[in-house]
């Protein structure tokens, strides 16, 4: 071997301490102004979001102070007689969200897998655009479609499920008699199930794009390793892509759930709004916090409005928690899997 690259003797005298030279860049006026402006814009955005929360708290506080804990337990909406609560509508929102996710999860997962693993290369970009387009279609159009088209086709399914699986409590429908041929199908319309189906289509794209991104980051080496060990394509997906994309799957699903909880117009068009807890997802009449707000916003009294603000606050907090959890999961899964390009 040759001599080492560094001589063991320090080249400077030991009493001269080697202090790192401070590196400072004097910024010009232009740069200082730019940095100030940029920071200011960040602060402005932050302030705006804080204002949204702040105003809801400010206005909703009036109602919450009167109502107290009953706000979370009462199942009707009579602010004028000081008897109101979001127990029913909040349950409705959550049930609609869960129903939507129940359908959206397999749809999004399958589509994301298709785009990232199965689709031929020339189709990928088109498919991604189509999924993005699906996210951009206005919610009122989905509402129109769900209310006027989907509902009449799905009512038969709802009747079928309630007839044969009605012994499971959530599929029970009060007032439905499968043996009566003249049965009024209205007991099945405007239900959590139909609203959930409509919302499922709206939240699938967002969940799908998060999942697709996570899947496409599964490392190439391990994919090829799986193939080299003799895995089939599905074997490779099951052992490489899905484990690597787990964060994306969970995070995307929760992002979709957050979207579904806050969805207003499509739900409002489809459901028949009620204020009691409706555990039967196939039955007409359910609640939703956002639909409650959309329905009552023209309220007469200031106190009425305060009640709606409090409901809006509850919805805001709920979606905020779900979204924070989702983005934390997505971010964590992303930081480990990313490869420097």
């Amino acid at each position, binding site marked *: 071997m040759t001599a080492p690259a560094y001589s063991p003797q320090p080249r400077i005298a030991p009493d001269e301490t080697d202090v790192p030279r401070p590196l400072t860049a004097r910024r010009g006026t232009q740069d200082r102004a730019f940095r100030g402006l940029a920071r200011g814009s960040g602060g402005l955005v932050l302030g705006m979001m804080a204002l949204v929360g702040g105003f*809801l708290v400010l206005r909703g506080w009036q109602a919450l102070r009167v109502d107290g804990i009953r706000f979370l337990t009462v199942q009707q909406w009579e602010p004028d007689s000081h008897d109101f609560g979001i127990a029913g509508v909040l349950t409705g929102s959550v049930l609609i969200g869960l129903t939507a996710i129940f359908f959206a999860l397999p749809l999004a997962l399958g589509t994301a897998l298709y785009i990232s693993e199965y689709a031929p290369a020339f189709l990928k970009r088109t*498919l991604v655009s189509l999924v993005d387009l699906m996210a951009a279609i206005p919610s009122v*159009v989905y509402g*129109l479609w769900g209310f006027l088209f989907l509902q009449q086709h799905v009512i038969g399914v709802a009747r079928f499920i309630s007839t044969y699986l009605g012994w499971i409590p959530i599929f029970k429908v009060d007032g439905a008699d499968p043996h009566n041929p003249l049965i009024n199908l209205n007991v099945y319309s405007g239900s959590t199930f139909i609203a959930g189906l409509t919302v499922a*289509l709206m939240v699938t794209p967002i969940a799908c794009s998060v999942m697709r991104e996570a899947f496409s980051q599964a490392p190439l080496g391990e994919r090829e390793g799986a193939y080299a060990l003799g895995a*089939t394509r599905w074997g490779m997906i099951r052992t490489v892509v899905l484990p690597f994309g787990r964060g994306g799957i969970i995070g995307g699903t929760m992002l979709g759930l957050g979207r579904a909880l806050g969805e207003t117009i499509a739900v409002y068009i489809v459901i028949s709004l009620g204020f009691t807890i409706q555990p039967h997802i196939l039955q007409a009449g359910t609640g939703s916090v956002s639909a409650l707000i959309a329905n009552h916003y023209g309220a007469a009294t200031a106190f009425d*409005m305060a009640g709606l603000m409090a409901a809006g606050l509850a919805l805001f907090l709920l979606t905020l928690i779900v979204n924070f959890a989702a983005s934390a999961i997505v971010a964590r899964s992303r930081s480990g899997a990313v490869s420097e390009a």
Partner: protein
Amino acid sequence: MDLYTETTPPQPQPEPQSQPGPATPPAGTTVVAEPGEPDRPERRRRTGGFRRDDLLALLGALAGALSFTLLLFTQLAPFDGLIGFFVVGYAAFLVFYTFLVALEESWPAVRDRLASAVVHSIALLLLLALGDVIVYVFSQGPQALRHLNFWTQDLRAAGPLQPLTIGGVRHAMIGTFEQITIALAITVPLGLLCAVFLNELPGRFARFVRTIADAATALPSVVAGLFVYAALIIGVQIGPVHLQIQKGGLAAGLAISVMMLPIIIRAADVVLRLVPGSLKEASYALGAGQWRTVWTVTLPTARSGLATAVILGSARGLGETSPVLLTAGYNTYTNGNPVQGPQTSLPLAVFKLVTSGEPLQIQRAYGAAAVLILVVLVLFITARIIGGHGPGHLTGRQRRARASASIRDLDRILARTAQNGSLP
């Protein structure tokens, strides 16, 4: 001493190997086998693709499932309904397909085929659903759309009993246009600046802002409307000033801004992150300041992506109903003034018309919804055309322009050199 030009490490002497040939090559060299006499032309083996047996199994399973389900639905069982037909048919298809593939393949291969079939059909289902939404609206829309008055009149004279030859959505189109313009005027400068901030001044504060903006992308739109209602329409007392605006276009534009801002920030942030760091560093190395670099390097490089972000954001914004519902009021006559009087937008018109429940109004709702989808589609296609390539990618025309610019520069330098006699 240079670290990188050194002798190769001492190589371990390879074990003497039993070579088939008589001439043993010197150790450490790679032996390329003599190509043997090809007894038949070599053919490239196909490792992927679709084999005939796969196709036959697929077609067989489809035919079997179809016949089985038809038999079941028409002859054997008292089932009905289109959705039921598809569900049963699909289940039968999966069973038959599994069976057919299992005749020839091993179990892991069967599972692979089955998973592939399920994934393909789910993607197909989603595309069908998307197509169905669009086709349904476009099939119902023309009844109202084909009358010219639908584009040129407003709804002031069109009650639920007036035929479709009276009334239109001109007022809603004007309203949508004005509201999205207001929203863009606020969100584009603020959103892009904030995205630049997130990328150029990283740190704890930027990370915090990014987290909040990300979380706010899923802010329920009705909450955005409620905020503007609570803050501006009810009014707020700041010191001696009572800040209050009317329900109308401006309030709706502000509500849409609250909703759109996080979306634009996030999309622009992602695009700006893709700008190659080497370009920025080249700019710094040439002595440019941070603002110069942002203005002349970062933003132009990301231009097409930023345009896409803005266009997609506005597609989302103009389709929103709930913020507008709370803040715009609703009217049926044309109101071009965003600060005075209620102003309708297209989604709001669709919503009001469809919830009225009157058949003719629902026809008008279809018409307005078709216009709305058309606008979204146009925006979307524009975005795709503009943002068809990544940052830094140039079209042929741009590349030719750059090339001729650089030839001009060279000419200029050469001319100056000739003048001065030598290179400066």
